[in-house]
């Protein structure tokens, strides 16, 4: 699976921008004509106003750094353990035969059901969300790392060996670049899963964080403010996606 960068040429860009304009227009029309109660879905103007207010609130910096800090720790943990476990499992056929199906079946478990356990063990602070987010991110990274390294074309390995590549050269110049696209896809999936599960964790039990604010404002029926936070999360996700696409486009030849 390769993901195209969002912006490619002017024609596709026009269509992409038009999509978002249409969504905004539909949102505005539905709320302005009172087809949907502003109690459930406030209009774009009301949400924009709330974004303005949120951005002036002193709590915003706390919430963003809380969520982002949790995320960075969880994702970093998952990347290091996922790459390490995945690579080791890929090095021997026996390991792959035993552990790949095992990891795949563990990945099928909806890990969120263990979140109450994580709270018992790690408390309502960032650690319980780190555990949740790291686990959600670990599996796609580990599984894609296994897939990436076990599916390297054996002709390429034979070619490198025949030219005298030692183990380090083989890893650096053949295995890593050959596995890279699949591993990168795993890391992208993991990123999304990690971010979503941390927000969900914050919505269930937390004192701070963007997810906590969304749950909090929602429960108090301050829906415009809630959508203000939602909009911030969406923007953050878009910004990330844009950044990764640009990076991948740079790496891909032609």
């Amino acid at each position, binding site marked *: 699976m390769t993901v195209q960068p969002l912006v490619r040429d002017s024609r596709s860009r026009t269509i992409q921008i038009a999509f978002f304009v249409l969504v905004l227009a539909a949102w505005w029309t539905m709320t302005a004509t009172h087809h949907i109660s502003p109690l459930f879905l406030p209009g774009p103007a009301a949400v924009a106003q709330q974004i303005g207010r949120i951005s002036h609130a002193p709590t915003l910096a706390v919430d963003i750094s809380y969520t982002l800090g949790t995320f960075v720790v969880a994702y970093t943990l998952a990347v290091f353990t996922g790459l390490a476990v995945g690579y080791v499992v890929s090095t021997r056929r026996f390991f792959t035969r035993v552990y790949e199906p095992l990891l795949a079946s563990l990945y099928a478990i909806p890990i969120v059901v263990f979140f109450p356990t994580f709270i018992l063990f790690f408390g309502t602070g960032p650690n319980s969300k780190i555990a949740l987010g790291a686990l959600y991110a670990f599996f796609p990274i580990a599984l894609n790392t296994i897939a990436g390294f076990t599916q390297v074309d054996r*002709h390429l390995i*034979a070619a490198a060996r025949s030219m*005298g*590549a030692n183990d380090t*050269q083989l890893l650096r110049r053949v295995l890593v670049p050959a596995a890279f696209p699949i591993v990168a896809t795993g890391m992208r999936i993991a990123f999304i899963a990690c971010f979503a599960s941390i927000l969900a964790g914050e919505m269930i039990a937390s004192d701070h964080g963007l997810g906590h604010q969304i749950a909090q404002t929602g429960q108090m029926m301050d829906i415009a403010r809630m959508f203000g936070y939602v909009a911030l999360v969406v923007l953050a996700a878009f910004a990330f996606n844009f950044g990764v696409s640009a990076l991948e486009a740079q790496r891909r030849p032609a």
Partner: protein
Amino acid sequence: MAIGISAGHLSHAFDHNGAALRVLDDVSLTVVPGEMVCLLGPSGCGKSTLLNIIGGLLKADAGSVQIGDAPVHGVMPRRVGFVFQENALFPWSTVWENLIVGLEFQGVASAERAARATHALKTVGMSDFAKFYPDQLSGGMKQRVGLARALALQTDVLLMDEPFAALDEQTRMILGEDLSVLLSETGKTIVMVTHSLSEAVFLSDRIFVMTARPGRIKAIVEVRREHPRRPDFMTSAQFNDVRAELYTLLHDEMRAAAAIAAV
């Protein structure tokens, strides 16, 4: 300075779902320095396995190989170069980087790497494509680059594993003609695996015809014609006679191989 190859009593079996699949049965052969030979045989007869054993990519169950004065225990990157089918170029690297990386593996100094790569690309007529990625090239061009990569290593022995298998017939013919010129100039000792009768006749000094699995040398056919060979060789009576001889030798083996495959 060319060196010869000798292989004695090579036997090999693969594990096939727990059962031993014999692919080579007591194969011995000698290639004299500077000679170009083809291994010709039906699919699955073990000709690629034999090539990999000669080149040290695979260890035979029994038997030994000697290249020049050295017994083969593993790859010998300074003596033996490989040309594989077209998918053996690194797709994430440009043509230039593909040539450089092999020299880097061998620890060739960086100034010399550039000189060797430039010369090898020129030899195969691909100088203008140094900055291209493999998937921007046609199948024939990729094979030229694969050949250049092996030439840049400046080995005395070149092993080619069905290098033209993925190409259309016209591209094969052009590449075959160029190869005949190029290889006669380098004086390398060459072993090439093919399943194309015409290719074998056009390029070889001698052709080792193999039996269906388990592979044995069934016959050795000589092609007495000096290199480089010109296209008109292909329409000559000599060419057709040798080709007909090979066809007769191969026909029963192809039938046998098809019967094995059908089981």
